[in-house]
Structure formats: structure tokens, C-alpha cells
């Protein structure tokens, strides 16, 4: 127990110290974790051989990350990506594998070993690249999207690779291995004795379980948990889901990452998506961080310094080779300017799946252990160098490109997200109008029965409390363009607006309020447009009343227009006198001013104000005539003919 606590203390301590410093220096969190790992591992020796096991555990962060990536990807979006996914991703893996294989063969490796090396090194690091792109806000750029397509293809390509690699086994190594025991990571599955076609059937069945189960079983399950109103139960269920799928996939010999990715895609349309996202996110972040630390800690410095020139040379060579292929592909696939370079720089390293494949190849006697150790070092070094490449991209490549490109940024196709908090009567109308006008909205609602009820009418929304920062984060508040606050409670609405204003100063906030005091508070909280919930409807009711009393509809319209205008002005005037610490009924200046406002409003409506500019009758007057207060406001047809 002490040992575990001590380890946790060392890892957390290293992360907490190194990562903020790295971020402050502009190095990014990934490099921070890697440095933290180097510090506690090879440099100080605080952690030792156990990093290997911890790494296997931390690789689970990648599985979680792919689940989250899947959640972001609706099946339709995935389908739209198919061109780049297969074209760009497929060519990247194919060309890089061929190039690395050819290079390895010139170093004198036999073709089967060379091919295995090529496969291992063709992959890039999903963990580093996605983490860095998200951190830098470049995920939505064309270069970011292209990089993501390639990464996704690679993640999928791992599975056929795992199937292919055993076929490359070297007989002599195989025998040697079977005599010496292994660390038990040899992927023993329940399918050991089955034929090829049986394996395929079981695999398909497992995928079907994930897809069908995700589609049909998840909703009632989550609904049940939501009704329990226990937040930690939701977190537990989310973790259970991911671990369960990972376990199932491992049992049948498929990639857990692929399984959870699929589950993510299936759940992307679910109303529980954002809740799941915010529950899994911290686990993913910590596990990935741990993973990066173990990469740093696992660098074998004795081996590295013993062959420094060779290994460093090979690493740089590998990065250059991968970058060259990526750049050619980027040009072929018509990426422009900085996007082209972003993809080139982002994907030039080898990745964590490389580690997985490497241990797999060594276990399957495809690659000799000595070579495996060196490759491991090259993969780790190339990952270590990636943040440096990003820094070169930011500091050297981007400034040069920007001079060449005169503001291309105007053509932003991504319209930015719209977040609607609350899907009660108010939020529903706003949502319907926005949807009907062709905008996409993200709706958050915390009453599961409301969500279910509206789903029957085809209205999609996400389950979750809109005042929770983590949920807002996963709903995309940071890069949202518009927030509509339509939740039913006064204080939470104010808190939500304050939080949104703090995290996204540029966002436009439309807020529903209940009364005048709430208006003032909402104004101070930072809302842009403040709507009193029953103001417009009561104005409309008063217009109907005026019409019913026989006023000409246009006169009634003008009266209410003037009323609204004056009321708004008065509100603005009174806002400056309102004091949150004094009840309005005891705030004398406020009371006096509001009496003044009311008097002026009445005068304006009656057309008796001293200023010509204050009368309802202004406009459409007979030139030279003094506005006649007693003039009929009735429609012509109502006027009785003058008595003879």
C-alpha cells in the first residue's frame, strides 16, 4: 500500500510541477509530461522497472480518448470523411510502410523483419497529436481535420496489422521464444482453438454487440441512472461501459481502441453524449498524462548513449522520411498554406500504437528483441521530439507563411456552435426557430422526462445540468458563438452567464430573466441580450386589450411600441440606481426615479408630454396642427357620422 501511495505521489508530483511550467514556457502539456517522466525515471531513478506495467495500464487512456473522439463524430460526419480517411490515411500508411521497409532492407534486414518495422513506424501518435492540436485550438482547421483522418485510419489499420504480423514470424525466433517464458502479454484469447472463419464470426458478433447494444440498451440504462440522481453513478456507468467494451474486444482479439471508438460513434447521437464526455474526460486526461510520463521514464539512457549517433540519426531520418511523404500527400490532397505544414509536422513521429505493435512483434517472434529495444527507443525519441517540431511550426513556419497569405481567414465555414441551456417552454421556441433557420444547436436539459417527451416529437437534446462547467466544456462552450440561457432557476442562470462570460469573452449571450431585479443582475453578469420572460407576451396582451376597446389597430400598435421603447429607456436609467445590497422597496433614489419614469411613460402614451418628441402621435401628423389628444383613435368605420 505504501508503495502504491509513494508511486502515485511521485507521478502526480512530477506532473503537477513539470506540466504547468512546460505550458508556461509554451512547450505544451505533452512535452511537460514527457520531461516529468525523464526526470523521475532515468535521471533520478525514483521509479524503475514498474513503468512497463504502468504503461500498459496507462495505454487505456488512448482507449478512452478514442471513445471521446468517437463521441464527437456522428456516423454521418464519419461517412463524409471517407475520402480523406481512406485516401489520405490509406496512402500515408501504405507509402510510409513501403518507404521504411525499403530503408530497413538497405540496412541489411530481411524483408519480413523490414516490413514489420515499416508497419510499426508508419503509425503516428494519436495521443500526442490530438492532445496538442486540441490544446492549440487547431483541431477544426483543415490541417487538423486532415491529421485526424490519417490518425483514425491508422488506429483502424492497427487491427489488420495485428492479424498480419504473426504471419511474418521468423521460425528460429519463434522456437527460442517458446522456450523462454514471456511477460504474459501474449494476447491469449478465448479463440485459441478456433478456425479462421469462426474467429471472424465471433469478431463480427462482438462488434454487433457493441453497435446494437450501444444503440438500443444504452438509453434505458442511462435513463435509469439519470433518474437515480446520483452523479457518481453516471461516472461509474460510463467507466463500466468503456472497460466492458475494452474487455470484450480483448477477449475476442480485437483492438479495444477500435471497440470504444465504435461505441463512441454509436453514442454520438445520444442525448447522454455530453454527460458521458464530461465524465470520461478527466480519466482520459490523467491516464494519457501517465502514459506520456511512462514514455519519458522508459527511455533507456544507457542504450541511448551507447549508440547515440546511430539512434539519433535514425530518429531524425525517420521523422524526415515521414514528413516528406506527408508533405507530398498534403500537396496532392490540396491542403493549403499552413494546413499543409501543420499536417506534415504533426504526424511525423512514430506513436504509442508503435509500442503495442512492437511488443506484439517481439512476442510473435517477428523482430528480434535487441532490434525491438532500439526501435522502442526510436519511437520514444520521435515522440519526445514532436513538441519541439510543433514549436518550430509555430515560431518559424507560421510567421513566414502569414506574410505570404494576406488574410485568408475570412472564409470560415464552421459557423460556430450554438449552446441552448434549458429546453423548457422558452428554450423550445428558441431552439425551433434556430433549427428551422438552418442552424445547428447543442441543447442541454437536466430533466430526463422532458428529454424523453420531446424526443418523441423529434427534438434532440442532451441530458445534463447546464450549470456544470465540465458539461459546458464538452458541449463546446469555449468555441461557441452563441449561448441562450433558458433555464428555470434565477441563481443558476446568473452563475451560468458569469461562467460563460469568463471562459469565452467573445460569446454572445441571450438570457431569459424573470423580473426587473433579475434584469439588473443579469446585466452585471455579462449577458448581451436580456429578455424578460413575460414582457413581450404581456405587451401583446395589452395591444389586444386596446384593440378590443375599439382603438384602431395601428394606434394600438403605436402605443405599445412607444411603451416598449420608454420602458427600456427607463430600465436602463433605473439600472444605474439599483443596488444589489438594498431591497428596491427601501432604495429611495430608485423609488423616486421609477416614479419619474412611470410618469413620463404615461405622458408619452397620452400624447401630452411637453416635448414634441415624446408623443405617440408623432409622425403622420397634419402639418402645422398641434397633436389633438382627443382625436379619435378608432378605425374610420367605427366613427359615427357627425350629427346634422
Amino acid at each position, binding site marked *: 500500500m505504501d508503495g502504491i501511495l509513494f508511486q502515485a505521489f511521485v507521478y502526480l508530483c512530477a506532473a503537477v510541477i513539470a506540466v504547468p511550467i512546460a505550458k508556461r514556457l509554451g512547450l505544451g502539456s505533452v512535452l511537460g509530461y514527457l520531461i516529468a517522466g525523464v526526470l523521475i525515471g532515468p535521471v533520478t531513478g525514483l521509479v524503475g522497472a514498474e513503468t512497463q506495467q504502468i504503461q500498459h495500464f496507462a495505454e487505456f487512456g488512448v482507449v478512452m480518448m478514442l471513445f471521446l473522439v468517437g463521441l464527437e463524430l456522428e456516423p454521418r460526419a464519419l461517412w463524409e470523411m471517407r475520402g480523406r480517411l481512406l485516401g489520405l490515411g490509406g496512402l500515408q500508411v501504405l507509402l510510409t510502410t513501403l518507404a521504411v521497409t525499403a530503408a530497413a532492407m538497405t540496412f541489411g534486414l530481411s524483408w519480413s523483419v523490414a516490413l514489420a518495422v515499416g508497419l510499426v513506424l508508419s503509425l503516428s501518435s494519436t495521443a500526442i497529436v490530438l492532445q496538442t492540436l486540441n490544446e492549440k485550438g487547431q483541431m477544426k482547421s483543415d490541417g487538423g481535420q486532415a491529421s485526424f483522418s490519417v490518425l483514425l485510419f491508422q488506429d483502424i489499420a492497427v487491427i489488420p496489422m495485428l492479424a498480419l504480423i504473426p504471419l511474418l514470424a521468423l521460425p528460429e525466433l519463434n522456437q527460442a521464444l517458446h522456450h523462454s517464458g514471456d511477460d504474459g502479454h501474449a494476447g491469449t484469447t478465448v479463440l485459441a482453438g478456433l478456425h479462421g472463419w469462426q474467429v471472424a464470426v465471433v469478431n463480427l458478433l462482438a462488434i454487433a454487440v457493441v453497435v446494437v447494444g450501444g444503440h438500443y440498451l444504452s438509453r434505458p440504462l442511462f435513463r435509469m441512472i439519470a433518474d437515480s440522481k446520483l452523479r457518481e453513478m453516471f461516472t461509474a456507468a460510463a467507466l463500466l461501459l468503456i472497460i466492458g467494451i475494452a474487455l470484450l474486444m480483448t477477449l475476442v482479439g480485437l483492438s479495444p481502441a477500435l471497440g470504444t471508438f465504435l461505441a463512441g460513434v454509436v453514442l454520438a447521437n445520444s442525448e447522454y453524449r455530453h454527460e458521458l464526455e464530461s465524465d470520461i474526460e478527466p480519466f482520459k486526461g490523467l491516464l494519457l498524462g501517465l502514459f506520456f510520463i511512462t514514455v519519458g521514464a522508459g527511455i533507456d539512457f544507457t542504450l541511448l548513449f551507447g549508440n547515440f549517433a546511430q539512434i539519433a540519426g535514425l530518429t531524425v531520418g525517420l521523422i524526415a522520411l515521414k514528413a516528406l511523404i506527408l508533405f507530398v500527400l498534403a500537396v496532392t490532397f490540396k491542403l493549403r498554406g499552413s494546413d499543409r505544414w501543420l499536417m506534415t509536422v504533426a504526424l511525423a513521429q512514430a506513436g504509442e500504437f508503435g509500442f503495442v505493435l512492437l511488443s506484439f512483434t517481439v512476442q510473435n517472434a517477428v523482430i528480434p528483441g535487441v532490434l525491438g529495444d532500439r526501435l522502442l527507443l526510436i519511437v520514444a525519441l520521435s515522440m519526445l521530439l514532436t513538441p519541439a517540431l510543433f514549436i518550430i511550426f509555430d515560431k518559424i513556419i507560421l510567421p513566414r507563411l502569414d506574410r505570404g497569405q494576406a488574410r485568408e481567414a475570412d472564409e470560415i465555414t464552421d459557423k460556430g456552435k450554438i449552446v441552448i441551456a434549458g429546453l423548457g417552454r422558452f428554450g423550445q421556441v428558441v431552439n425551433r426557430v434556430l433549427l428551422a433557420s438552418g442552424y445547428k444547436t447543442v441543447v442541454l436539459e437536466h430533466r430526463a422526462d422532458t428529454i424523453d417527451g420531446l424526443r418523441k416529437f423529434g427534438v434532440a437534446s442532451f441530458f445534463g445540468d447546464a450549470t456544470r462547467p465540465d458539461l459546458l466544456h464538452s458541449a463546446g462552450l469555449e468555441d461557441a458563438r452563441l449561448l441562450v440561457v433558458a433555464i428555470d432557476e434565477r441563481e443558476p442562470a446568473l452563475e451560468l452567464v458569469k461562467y460563460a462570460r469568463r471562459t469565452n469573452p467573445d460569446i454572445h449571450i441571450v438570457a431569459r430573466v424573470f423580473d426587473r431585479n433579475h434584469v439588473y443582475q443579469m446585466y452585471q453578469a455579462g449577458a448581451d441580450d436580456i429578455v424578460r420572460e413575460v414582457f413581450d407576451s404581456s405587451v401583446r396582451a395589452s395591444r389586444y386589450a386596446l384593440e378590443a376597446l375599439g382603438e384602431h389597430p395601428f394606434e394600438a400598435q403605436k402605443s405599445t411600441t412607444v411603451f416598449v421603447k420608454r420602458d427600456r429607456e427607463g430600465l436602463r436609467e433605473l439600472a444605474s440606481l439599483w443596488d444589489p445590497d438594498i431591497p428596491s422597496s427601501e432604495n429611495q433614489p430608485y423609488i423616486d426615479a421609477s416614479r419619474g419614469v412611470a410618469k413620463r411613460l404615461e405622458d408619452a402614451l397620452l400624447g401630452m408630454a411637453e416635448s*414634441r418628441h415624446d408623443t405617440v402621435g408623432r409622425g*403622420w401628423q397634419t*402639418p*402645422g396642427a398641434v397633436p389633438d389628444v382627443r382625436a379619435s383613435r378608432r378605425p374610420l368605420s367605427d366613427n359615427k357620422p357627425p350629427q346634422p
Partner: protein
Amino acid sequence: MARVLVNYAHPGQRHSRINRSLARCAEMLDGISFVDLYASYPRFNIDVDQEQLQLLNHDVIILQFPLYWYSTPALLKEWQDLVLEYGFAYGPGGDKLAGKYLLPVVTAGAAEETYQCDGSNCYSLRELLAPLEQTAALCQVEYLPPYVLFSAHQARDEVSGDRHISGYQSLLTALRDDHYDYNAAVKFDHLGYARLADVLTEHN
């Protein structure tokens, strides 16, 4: 430097590339005030005080609009009805606009030949805009020959459209920098891109 105000009124600007380009051209120019009336008053609740203040603060008032039934779009008519008030623009004490200039910038769908006594529209454009011209006269405002683009629907993808836009830019710049020859302008019924150079003293 003359203070130039462009009051732009187009209720269907989504569908009019020419008018949007013209508007953007006016909006981008330094030293020109640009108001999209339909954006300021989407519900026709014109702020009369604000609009009158705008008029007082400028020397040249440009009304940019597409010709709708031989007249201005509805909001611009409402603007005239409300803003050009008795006692402000005309009548006793109504000389607040005296000495200013009014320039209509108009796009018309039909060809120029149709706007004549034997054409299908029977009257010249200048004649059809007579109410605006007389409004200016009553307000003691000098009426400048309208800057007109005929066949605006066809001009969408043609050079005539681009020329008209660059002409508009020269016209606005000239008005702003006092390079507009008001004396020469009197001779013209209306202006298009072709004869614009005759009224600009320093054509750029």
C-alpha cells in the same frame, strides 16, 4: 472634406449581389457614414431623433436603394414620412436641412431604353423619382443627378456591375474629398459609370 452619409435600404439584400457589393463598398470607405436602415429598424420602429441627428451631422445625404414599383422600398418611404418632419425639414422653422445635398443611388431591373416616353416604362427614371426630387426642393436640399445602374439583374456577373461598383467608390471618394463638380452635375439628367468622369474633378 464633406461629411457624407449613405442611408442604404434594401429589404431583400440576400438576393442582390450588386446592392450588397455597393453597400460594402460604401461601408469600407473611410470618412463615410454608412447606415443599413433595414438592419437598424428591422421592425420599422424608426428612431426619429437619431435619424434627424444623423442628417444634421452630414452635408451629403445618399439614399441607396433598388427601385420598387417606381419608388423607394417601404422602410425608406417610412423614413421620409417620419424623419423629414414638419418644423424640422419643412414648414415654419423647418430649415434644418437647407444647403445640404441629396443623391439617390438607384438600381433598376429593366434596361435604360425602357425608361423613356416610348419605352415600356413610359417615363424617364428622373421623372419617376420626381417625388424625391420635390421632397428635396421643399426641404431646401440640392438634388444631385441620381447614380443609376440599369439592367441590374443582368449586371450580376458582368463587367457592367464591377464598373458600376468601382464608379460608386470614385463617386463617394470625390464627394468626400470635394472633388465633385456640382456645377457640371446640374447638366445631367442622371449618371452612370460612363459619364461619371465628367463630374469628378480628380478622377481616381
